[in-house]
């Protein structure tokens, strides 16, 4: 077998991600792939950062390749490694962390860097760019102060940033140096309409505004304009454009101009080195929109797979603005000239403006504002160079007015030719979508996204894809329906929870029978969810169904990638002793446990334990007084603490004691998703309580209760629930809040997502102000704990579920001798 070639990729953005997808399809076993990503995370959809900023999407929703994808394809991904050197002689690259990797083929996809205005003060704290998730997180943090933001740049990015910050409650001003907004994509009339629309959202727009200096002492305080105006600001976002990031290639001696110069096959001046994405310059042009970047990815992977004729061809890409409520579409050449004519439609009252630029009876440019449904059709006419002279009179009214079938949007989509492009980002045409719907039996938008990628990037063609779904499937497609729990039922999580209570359903078979499940015994999505709902709703009557629990909750340890397990005992409030540590050390030695690690939740993880050894490990730990830390559970995990008034000279309350009290009160409880808590003894917050599901900050006057934080894929500071005076009250409020979440949360929905859905004010009202209701929650929690607080480890040491830990048989050689 031929030895695999080594492909090293610098950069982990959308273009190289797409290139690798193609490559694995075309030549699945040809390359060993290593990726260096300067960002400490996986590949995500950068186009969708604006909806994350505005709060319309979560970061999880915009991930393109999760960790599993890298594992599946055997890719080595160095997260947070910036490549600092390419040695073309030795054919190696080296990262800032000192890692050196050899390559046979190298792909440089370093993207672009934001353009930072060369004005004094541009490096003050509080001056941000808008490029990656870190920038978004920094903006979200700044937005919490509800202060004043100035966005420099009235282009696509700047306006999206401004809208996002505004929806997060900031007071926003956009500065634009040109007379109208988005002047590169829009004509002045559309730019003016856009400016009005942006202003009606409460965003101030200043055009012809030239920034002279960013002022501030130690941090941003304002922006000084060339005309002498000073705008006070606590946050300045630079969104004045991007520059191809060609530095690394230039230092390596590759030919660069504005970007890294490549031929139509995406090869740089070194034939073993390719470049794609915003850093590449092909045919004298650099690109910033996703469609041409994906085209580069397609060409480059085809070249790598040996298709030498694959070549990049320039095409115009439509621009769309992702600000909810503003519809805008622009593509092509909008300039005026003697050889050009134009058709314009204005409806000031309806806020509609449409302009087509024509040359030789063909459309060469389109601007649509307010009503953009015909954008794809106009663009299609441009691409095909269709002679429009026959329909010129009605052209501007759109496709549905051609051929006498007006005003039915479905008819318009039905009339589109099979090769009409529906998804510009991913280059998916109509027939590919309809073919997948019928050929693969797809029934939902998510299905279509999974199989064709149509509408899976910026999402602006979602409407068209949904129309294709209803055209193809007829009445059986119902887009407005609640998302079902899984394909076993049409009911959503909330309906199922309500019906379990209303109909008094107390077993999984009863739920499936009464609610007309479509499968005989569910699937791996609905069964664990139903099991949780039943445990939560009928704590005394329901018999927990272990066969419906994920393996970790069945064997009370965490499965690892090699099939071994890890074990984490509880250390109440993070406190431990020499006796406990000695017992752990003895267990590690006795069972030859390969790795021991201190966790982020202030306890100790033993990794690499064979499944057969688990009961004996627990027996030894149990003798030292340990119980399961439930580090595997959709339930209470840890309560992290600081040392509080016991030791700390700043402590205001006994935070350690309160943490231990909460953990001892609440351990063993099951919840919709994991729950991590913390108690800090003073506002210095050493226990990091403000990024937990529930956190307490002790202050002189009592206990400030926080909730709905996150510090995983999402980083989100907590919201304040309220202040209480005594430790008893703190416990009662925390418990009541958790019970409310237990009763209402959807399975796998963390507290911060539940809180967003239910509303922070509603939660505050029920827990802080409605005492009878709070007492009710508290008492139901206490009741359910009577059945939940059984240490699963000691149960199993005494013989429960023995079959889980032993093979049924071991067939050796002798038995075969019959």
């Amino acid at each position, binding site marked *: 077998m031929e030895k695999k070639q080594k492909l090293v990729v610098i950069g982990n953005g959308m273009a190289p991600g797409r290139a690798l997808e193609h490559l694995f399809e075309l030549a699945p076993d040809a390359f060993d792939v290593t990726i260096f990503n300067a960002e400490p995370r996986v590949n995500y959809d950068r186009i969708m950062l604006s909806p994350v900023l505005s709060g319309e999407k979560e970061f999880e929703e915009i991930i393109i390749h999760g960790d*599993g994808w890298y*594992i*599946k394809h055997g890719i080595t991904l160095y997260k947070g490694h910036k490549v600092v050197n390419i040695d073309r002689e030795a054919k190696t690259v080296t990262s800032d962390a000192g890692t050196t990797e050899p390559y046979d083929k190298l792909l440089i996809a370093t993207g672009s860097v934001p353009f930072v205005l060369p004005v004094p003060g541009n490096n003050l704290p509080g001056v941000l760019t808008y490029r990656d998730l870190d920038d978004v997180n920094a903006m979200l943090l700044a937005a919490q102060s509800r202060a004043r933001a100035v966005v420099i740049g009235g282009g696509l990015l700047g306006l999206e940033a401004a809208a996002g910050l505004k929806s997060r409650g900031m007071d926003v001003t956009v500065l634009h140096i040109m007379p109208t907004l988005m002047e590169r994509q829009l004509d002045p009339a559309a730019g003016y309409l856009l400016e009005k629309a942006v202003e009606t959202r409460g965003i101030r727009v200043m055009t012809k505004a030239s920034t002279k200096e960013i002022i501030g002492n130690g941090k941003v305080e304002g922006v000084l304009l060339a005309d002498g105006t000073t705008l006070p600001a606590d946050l300045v976002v630079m969104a004045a454009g991007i520059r191809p990031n060609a530095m690394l290639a230039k230092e390596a001696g590759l030919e660069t101009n504005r970007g890294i110069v490549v031929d139509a096959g995406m090869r740089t001046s070194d034939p073993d080195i390719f470049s794609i994405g915003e850093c590449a310059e092909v045919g004298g042009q650099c690109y910033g929109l996703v469609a041409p970047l994906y085209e580069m990815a397609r060409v480059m992977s085809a070249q790598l797979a040996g298709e030498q004729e694959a070549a990049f061809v320039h095409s115009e890409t439509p621009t769309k603005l992702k600000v909810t409520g503003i519809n805008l579409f622009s593509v092509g050449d909008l300039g005026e000239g003697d050889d050009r004519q134009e058709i314009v439609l204005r409806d000031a009252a309806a806020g509609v403006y449409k302009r087509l630029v024509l040359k030789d009876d063909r459309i060469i440019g389109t601007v649509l504002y307010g009503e953009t449904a015909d954008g794809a059709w106009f663009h299609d006419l441009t691409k095909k160079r269709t002679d429009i002279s026959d329909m010129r009179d009605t052209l501007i009214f759109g496709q549905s007015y051609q051929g006498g079938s007006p005003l039915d949007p479905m008819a318009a989509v039905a009339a589109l030719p099979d090769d009409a492009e529906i998804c510009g980002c991913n280059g998916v045409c109509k027939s590919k979508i309809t073919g997948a719907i019928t050929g693969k039996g797809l029934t939902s938008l998510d299905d279509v996204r*999974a*199989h064709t990628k149509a509408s899976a990037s910026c999402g602006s063609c979602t409407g068209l894809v949904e129309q294709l779904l209803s055209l193809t499937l007829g009445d059986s497609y119902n887009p407005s329906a609640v998302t079902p729990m899984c394909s076993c039922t049409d009911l959503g999580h909330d309906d199922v929870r309500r019906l379990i209570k209303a109909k008094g359903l107390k077993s999984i078979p009863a739920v499936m029978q009464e609610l007309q499940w479509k*499968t*005989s*015994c*569910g*699937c*791996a999505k609905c*069964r*664990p969810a139903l099991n949780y709902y039943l445990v939560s709703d009928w704590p005394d009557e329901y018999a927990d169904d*272990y*066969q*419906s*629990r*994920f*393996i*970790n909750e*069945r*064997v009370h340890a965490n*499965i690892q*990638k090699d*099939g071994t397990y890890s074990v984490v005992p509880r250390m109440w409030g993070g406190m431990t002793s020499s006796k406990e540590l000695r017992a752990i050390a003895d267990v590690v030695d006795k069972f030859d446990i390969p790795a021991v690690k201190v966790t982020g939740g202030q306890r100790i993880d033993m990794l690499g334990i064979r499944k057969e050894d688990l009961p004996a490990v627990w027996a030894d730990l149990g003798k030292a007084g340990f119980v399961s830390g439930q580090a595997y559970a959709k339930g209470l995990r840890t309560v992290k603490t600081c040392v509080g008034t016991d030791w700390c000279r700043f402590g205001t309350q006994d935070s350690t004691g309160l943490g231990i009290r909460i953990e001892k009160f609440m351990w063993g409880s099951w919840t919709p998703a994991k729950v991590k808590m913390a108690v800090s003894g003073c506002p210095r917050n050493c226990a990091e309580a403000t990024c937990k599901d529930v956190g307490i900050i002790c202050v002189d006057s009592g206990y400030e209760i926080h909730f709905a934080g996150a510090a995983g894929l999402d980083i989100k500071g907590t919201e304040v629930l309220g202040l209480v005076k005594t430790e008893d009250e703190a416990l009662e409020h925390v418990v009541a809040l958790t019970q409310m979440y237990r009763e209402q949360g959807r399975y796998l929905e963390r507290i911060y997502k539940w809180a967003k859905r239910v509303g922070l004010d509603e939660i505050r009202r029920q827990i802080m102000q409605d005492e009878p209701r709070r007492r009710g929650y508290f008492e139901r929690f206490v009741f359910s704990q009577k059945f939940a607080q059984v240490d699963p480890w000691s149960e199993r040491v005494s013989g429960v579920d023995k*079959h889980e830990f032993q*093979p*049924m*048989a*071991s*067939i*050796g*050689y*002798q*038995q*075969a*001798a*019959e």
Partner: protein
Amino acid sequence: MSWVEIGTINDIPRRGARCVNTPNGKIAVFRTMEGQIFAIDDHCPHKGGPLSQGIVHGASVTCPLHSWVISLETGKALGADEGCVKTIPIRLNGDSIMAELELPAVAAE
């Protein structure tokens, strides 16, 4: 190939699985809700996850590592994933489960 007794149906919980060590590696033996018995290699075609540890539903199992769904009847991955795991023929003799296993020749003395 020879038929070997590997246990009884009562050793396996309904909608559950047990594993059996064989000279050719671990196999996973499943018992469905309806009481059918299936055996397949205990090795997901995706990243080698132990299928015997997955959740059993209908005549399929969901791998605990990355949630691939494998048909117990055919060994094929279901849904959008593609891959296949070896199935092992099973015969019931009263309550006892017989599996047809390939055993090394040295044992045949």
